[in-house]
């Protein structure tokens, strides 16, 4: 490859970028607890998210036990089952996936990857974590409140969400849920401002927008979307809180409950659905875009090949981000709408498949004739592509009104969104943890445990969710704690349900191996060195591993090239780091 534009104009400009004032901690508390260092905040975010994620995992076991072996467990009453599904969904979507991708990976990777010393507003960043923790604690508190947590379903549809028939509806459950969400959104906005403005303003010299690794592009775009979408949830939560606590009728129609006329009247539950899904659909991509970005980097690094169609990848990320705001009503086909609206939303939904498909093709073409190293991060990345395609294809079914109407509220939908938005992003999270753990701790994760974890998780996830598609197709509705003996449901469904439950238990236990590996490798893992994957991006070029406070040594790196210079013809090594001036440059007289 010709190294173009090496002229005197392009010599490193002598003027230094003005150093950002960096906050230096003075005590143990400000260093490890109330830390303003994005890397510490990232670990705090990730730890909290994984801890609350474990709660959600246990809840999913309980649900599966009930579905697989109905009537065996006395303590799982229908009310408890509703509470389990609600909390499982809410925790997974918001408190685990959103927090882990943006709060965890965003905090750790953005400053390192763009070549900054820290986030631009470190104090606000710290507050963001503590408010997130508060939100999680409020959520956990609802388990201990009288009446237990809310059982309204993760969509919290009114009017049932705040009526006495729903667990927690007239108790503390729904109030704590709404307060927790409001806190989460406030905390997230604080963090989100940091992620966005750091990408805008904190990039080091030479790091143009089009030299950003796709991971940063994914997290950046997802954060912008989240900043615009979460206000919709905020509005919905505040108005529902008013309805529940102060007795307004924003969402509540006139109702008779237990033979008694309630004081509500005239409100519109559909209004809530619009607000909720205006947040809810972008949320899918808020989780997916960081995954897309990370997986692009994993594939390129572990296949030792530049990413195919970098520009297309960036455009696709931005296009998906913009389009995802005009598809929300496809969640509301069965709520009833003007046929033209249905047509419009079905069309936009299917259009999103185009940029998404571009991304999938580009991943596959990056792999094509690459030097594929089947490391554990790569295994997870490959598993993601397969799973995302599988989950995405059923999305094409459900995007069409005529197909959606009979399938809506069946287990088919559950299987679809678990594949596309549950399993797929979580596979990326695992891949990313195996990939960046050496940078975070200085040690590799144990390979044998990693292989075990990967294969059980990957095969197990399919054992859980493939049969679930069939269960949904024969008509088993979702949200039912037990189906009983119904004429249209064959016996095979009961056997399948038991099978799914056993698979879910096994996959769940495999995650314990993963958690054990995280702690075990901290002490006994193989020393990783600074750049074990021989990757190009800036976080691997730090002088210390794990990166010290301030990320880079005395001087910030200068970026000379994009993030994907693998196997460049004529280069000495099979990769050129982003801050590597390159052979042509080195040959130049200084």
């Amino acid at each position: 490859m010709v190294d173009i534009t090496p002229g005197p104009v392009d010599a490193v400009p002598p003027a230094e970028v003005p150093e950002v004032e960096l906050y230096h901690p003075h005590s143990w508390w400000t260093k490890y607890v109330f830390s303003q260092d994005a890397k510490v905040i990232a670990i705090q975010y990730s730890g909290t998210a994984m801890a609350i994620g474990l709660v959600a995992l246990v809840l999913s076991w309980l649900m599966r036990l009930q579905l697989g072996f109905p009537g065996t467990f006395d303590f799982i009453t229908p009310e408890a089952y509703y509470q389990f599904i609600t909390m499982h969904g809410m925790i997974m979507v918001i408190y685990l996936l959103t927090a882990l991708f943006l709060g965890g990976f965003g905090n750790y990777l953005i400053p390192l990857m763009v070549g900054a010393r820290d986030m631009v507003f470190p104090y606000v960043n710290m507050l963001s974590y503590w408010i997130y923790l508060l939100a999680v604690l409020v959520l956990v508190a609802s388990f201990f409140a009288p009446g237990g947590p809310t059982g309204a379903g993760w969509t919290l549809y009114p009017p049932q969400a705040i009526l006495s028939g729903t667990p927690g509806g007239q108790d503390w459950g729904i109030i704590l849920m709404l307060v927790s969400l409001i806190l989460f959104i406030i905390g997230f906005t604080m963090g989100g401002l940091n992620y966005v403005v750091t990408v805008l303003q904190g990039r080091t010299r030479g790091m143009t927008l089009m030299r950003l690794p796709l991971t940063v592009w994914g997290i950046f775009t997802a954060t912008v979307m989240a900043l615009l979408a979460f206000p919709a949830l905020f509005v919905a939560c505040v108005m529902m809180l008013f309805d529940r606590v102060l007795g307004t009728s924003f969402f509540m129609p006139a109702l008779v409950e237990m033979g008694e006329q309630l004081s509500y009247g005239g409100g519109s539950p559909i209004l809530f659905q619009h607000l909720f899904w205006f947040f809810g659909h972008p949320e899918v991509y808020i989780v997916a875009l960081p995954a897309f970005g990370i997986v692009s980097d994993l594939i390129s690094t572990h296949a030792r090949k530049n990413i195919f169609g970098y520009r297309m990848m960036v455009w696709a990320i931005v296009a998906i981000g913009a389009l995802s705001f005009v598809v929300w009503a496809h969640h509301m086909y069965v709520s009833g709408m003007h046929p033209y609206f249905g047509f419009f939303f079905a069309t936009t939904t299917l259009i999103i498949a185009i940029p998404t498909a571009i991304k999938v093709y580009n991943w596959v073409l990056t792999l094509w004739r690459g030097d594929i190293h089947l490391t554990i991060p790569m295994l997870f990345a490959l598993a993601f592509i397969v799973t995302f395609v599988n989950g995405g294809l059923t999305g094409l079914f459900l995007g069409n009104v005529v197909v959606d109407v009979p399938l809506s509220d069946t287990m088919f939908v559950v299987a679809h969104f678990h594949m596309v938005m549950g399993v797929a992003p979580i596979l990326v999270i695992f891949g990313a943890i195996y990939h960046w753990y050496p940078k975070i701790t200085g040690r590799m994760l144990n390979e044998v445990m990693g292989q075990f974890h990967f294969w059980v998780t990957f095969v197990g996830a399919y054992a859980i969710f493939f049969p679930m598609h069939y269960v949904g197709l024969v008509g088993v509705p979702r949200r039912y704690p037990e189906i009983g003996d119904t004429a249209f449901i064959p016996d095979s469904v009961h056997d399948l349900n038991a099978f799914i439950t056993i698979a879910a238990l096994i996959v769940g236990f495999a995650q314990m191996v993963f958690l054990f590996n995280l702690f075990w490798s901290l002490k006994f893992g193989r020393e990783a060195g600074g750049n074990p994957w021989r990757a190009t991006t800036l976080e691997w070029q730090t002088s210390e591993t794990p990166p010290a406070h301030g990320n880079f040594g005395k001087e910030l790196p200068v970026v000379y090239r994009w993030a994907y210079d693998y196997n460049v013809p004529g280069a000495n090594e099979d990769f050129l780091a982003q801050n590597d001036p390159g052979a042509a440059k080195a040959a130049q007289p200084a």
Partner: protein
Amino acid sequence: MSVILVFLLVIIGIAGWWLVQQGVMSKPWLEHGPRGALQDVEDPVIPTEKIGLAVFLAVVGALFALFASAYFMRMELPDWQALPILRLLWLNTGILVLSSVALQCAVIAARQGQMDTLRLALVTGGITALAFLAGQLVAWRQLSAEGNFLTANPANSFFYLLTGMHGLHILGGLLALTRTTIRAWSSASPERLRLGTELCAMYWHFLLFVWLALFVLLAGWAADFIEICRRVLT
């Protein structure tokens, strides 16, 4: 949901323009060297704090646009009874305009380095903002004295909710303004003081704009306007 969609369209327009400026059409795999295709990274012209505030204001804008969307959708239902416009609201609007003007004066004073004028303008801005909040509280009292309680009608609910939300944002702004004002007395660097003043003014102008939009919305003119537009179009 049309209000929020229009708002998003504006945001997408700005973002698209910015992306093109930043060279999303460039081919990074061909461009080596410390600068790349563009020289945007060097000497950032706009201070980071201002960018941060602008992004935050976009979020606040989305929030109020969503409230407005909800307002319009709820309004179409049959139990809606429009609220009479209190005269007091005109007065409050005037006070908030004054507050914004005062902060604009503060910005000019800070740029020229006139400390006395700056201090006076900052304090005036703060006091008028407090007066606005007090005026809004009196408006609430007047409404409830007339029997227009929160739950009596969705229009009332929205009035209390929207004015309350706006008031909370003013209150948050007052915290920042207090810090800047204290800084104007202590011997802080003039650079930081000027930046702080500019940020406060920016926030104030935005909240004034939001209030004007809300006022138009709550008074029912927005609905009339849309009705006229609809008739013209069909």
